[in-house]
């Protein structure tokens, strides 16, 4: 890629010619056709049966989890949930192309990547029920996962903030001589935030081994992509920042896998960022607080349901002779049972003791927080029935 940062590098033209967007028309990599066949002109990435099935089962698992947790929210058992239905291939296949040492910095719809790394049903539930077993100590809303042992950075709600952080994390990995990169997930909506521009520019200039993975799923809550940006999507912005870029079909797990694998190789060997724009559709509501019928049609959703990434992958697996339908049905059923049972069990686990309210604000609890905790405990013991979650375990 040419970098024209000096007058001497700039080519000369003699006619007024305004460059417009049409000149940059970035294609979308598709390896697996919507009918589940590998395109003739495409190169199928090498993928052993075991890995392929792990990707498939993780995608199925996440769908089961999403369905069950949305139901649990409707029953008032958890306060909030956010599903990734329709985008399972995008996040699971990208995670599969990484090394477990790579850091994942996620937005909030990437539970598939976390599940691929081995996060268990119990761990998912602990977080969603904000209980005392949860590593974030029940401080954040459901779906704000974080798991140090899985190199999965704890999620923060303010959008886009993780993008420049990912650049910094990756720079640190490089300086420490680690054989690892950072992947940063975000939505096309979040790509409008100032942090996106700051993060990409920093990564490009400072040569950070980071993959920016944009899930372009067509909507940011109710705002459709055409009200979010002009121009050729998010991919063209990567080019603008001098970042190697690829656009992929996000419902095609092979395209996502191949592109992420390549991006990782480039990031690591060339010490530079790569941007992946994964084109998909948010089949689910934005969250359980949202009602998509207020801003889009059932027909539009139905059209996308036909492009289901799980069904597409199943066709590919079947053609390979790797999918035993009966065994798979059983497996999915046991996932359902597992989720249901864990839900019932984890629901009973209490929240953290009240002391945790002042821990982790600083490395040590300063005097004023100690004072506030003492007062709070005294108060709770005076009104135990008003604070039932903690009053039984004040000491």
């Amino acid at each position: 890629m040419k970098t024209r940062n000096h007058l001497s590098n700039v080519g000369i033209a003699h006619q007024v010619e305004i460059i417009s967007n049409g000149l940059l028309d970035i294609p979308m990599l598709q390896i697996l056709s919507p009918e589940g066949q590998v395109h003739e002109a495409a190169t199928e990435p090498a993928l052993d049966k075991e890995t392929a099935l792990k990707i498939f089962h993780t995608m199925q698992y996440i769908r089961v989890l999403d369905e069950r947790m949305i139901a649990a929210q409707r029953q008032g058992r958890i306060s909030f949930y956010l599903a990734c239905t329709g985008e399972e291939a995008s996040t699971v296949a990208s995670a599969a192309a990484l090394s477990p040492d790579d850091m994942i910095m996620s937005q909030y719809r990437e539970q598939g990547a976390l599940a691929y790394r081995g996060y268990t049903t119990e761990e998912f539930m602990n977080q969603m029920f904000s209980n005392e077993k949860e590593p974030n100590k029940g401080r954040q809303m459901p779906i704000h996962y974080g798991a140090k042992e899985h190199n999965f950075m704890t999620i923060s709600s303010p959008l886009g903030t993780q993008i420049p952080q990912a650049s910094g994390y990756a720079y640190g990995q490089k300086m420490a001589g680690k054989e690892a990169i950072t992947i940063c997930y975000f939505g096309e909506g979040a790509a409008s935030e100032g942090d996106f521009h700051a993060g990409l520019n920093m990564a490009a200039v400072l040569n950070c081994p980071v993959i920016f993975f944009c899930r372009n799923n067509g909507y940011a809550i109710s705002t459709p992509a055409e009200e979010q940006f002009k121009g050729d999507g998010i991919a063209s912005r990567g080019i603008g920042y001098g970042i190697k870029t690829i656009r992929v079909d996000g419902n095609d797990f092979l395209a996502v896998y191949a592109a992420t694998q390549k991006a990782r190789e480039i990031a690591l060997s060339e010490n530079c960022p790569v941007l992946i724009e994964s084109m998909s559709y948010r089949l689910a509501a934005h969250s359980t607080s949202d009602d998509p019928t207020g801003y889009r049609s059932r027909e539009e959703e139905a059209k996308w349901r036909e492009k289901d990434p799980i069904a597409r992958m199943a066709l590919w697996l079947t053609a390979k002779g790797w999918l035993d339908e009966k065994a798979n049905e059983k497996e999915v059923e046991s996932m359902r049972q597992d989720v249901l049972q864990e839900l019932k069990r984890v629901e009973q686990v209490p929240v953290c003791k009240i002391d945790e309210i002042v821990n982790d604000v600083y490395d040590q609890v300063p005097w004023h927080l100690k004072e506030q905790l003492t007062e709070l405990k005294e108060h709770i013991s005076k009104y135990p029935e008003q604070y039932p979650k903690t009053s039984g375990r004040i000491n």
Partner: protein
Amino acid sequence: MATMNMLQAVNSALMTAMDQDERVMVFGEDVGHFGGVFRATSNLQEKFGKGRVFNTPLVEQGIIGFANGLAAQGSVPVAEIQFGDYIFPAFDQIVNETAKWRYRSGGQFSVGTLTIRTPYGGGISGGLYHSQSPEAFFSHCPGIKIVTPRNPYQAKGLLLASIRDDNPVLFMEPKRLYRASVGEVPEEDYQLPLGKAEVVKEGSDITLLAWGAQMEVIEKAALMAEKDGISCEIVDLRSILPWDAETVCESVQKTGRLLINHEAPQTSGFAAEIATTVQEKCFLYLESPIARVCGLDTPYPLAHEKEYMPDEFKTYEAIKRTMNY
């Protein structure tokens, strides 16, 4: 009069303002056809068109920067920040630009027509990033007004006054009350004064002061205290900046005691400012130290939300301590 909840009252104020002045424009994330994630801007786009009511890209610094430009040009922007917690990406535009525009240009230019609406506060299981009360950050910044309604009637009257005030106004809507608070609201145009507190209930032993959703809390605490024979005067600050020191001090001079309740963390919260001023102006009238019942000095937690809240029980206990000092 019609019965409305707070969202409907905000919507009614926006309808009225847009009807009456063509220069009024409403925008922000998801505010267009969808009507905002809370539906405060419902039906506005249908009525006034996409030119005046529109979705913006997801960028708060852009929303406020754009609104600043619009206001400088003479339009009347009412910009929505979806949650008070997400106002911080726009902090620079508000603190360094909005607030200083008139001063730095010697009064030649201003963005006085700008109103920023944002839902704030907790009690909705929102955890760290959907519960914050950021008023104190902005109270440290000369050049913007800060206003908080406590019910639908106030929401409409104060929002109309904010839109028409010739200063930039940060209008903070207590989201816990959006649907919970219902009351009579005139369908026609009316305004309530900015910068004026309201004495909601007279009393003689102690002044209880709050704003927004915490008004309910001090009202409940007052009922508990009254059973013990303590007579509480209840004051709603309504405007956090400029704030009505006169009304507050008059009340304290009468009762001799003051308790301030807010949801934001105690340290450098707005209660600290009020307490200092009252202490300066009413020192000889005070019969006990000014009490603060506030959020803890921690980020806003989820599982321990109930414990974190400066609720009526904590307030009631503080009233008794103040009385028995």
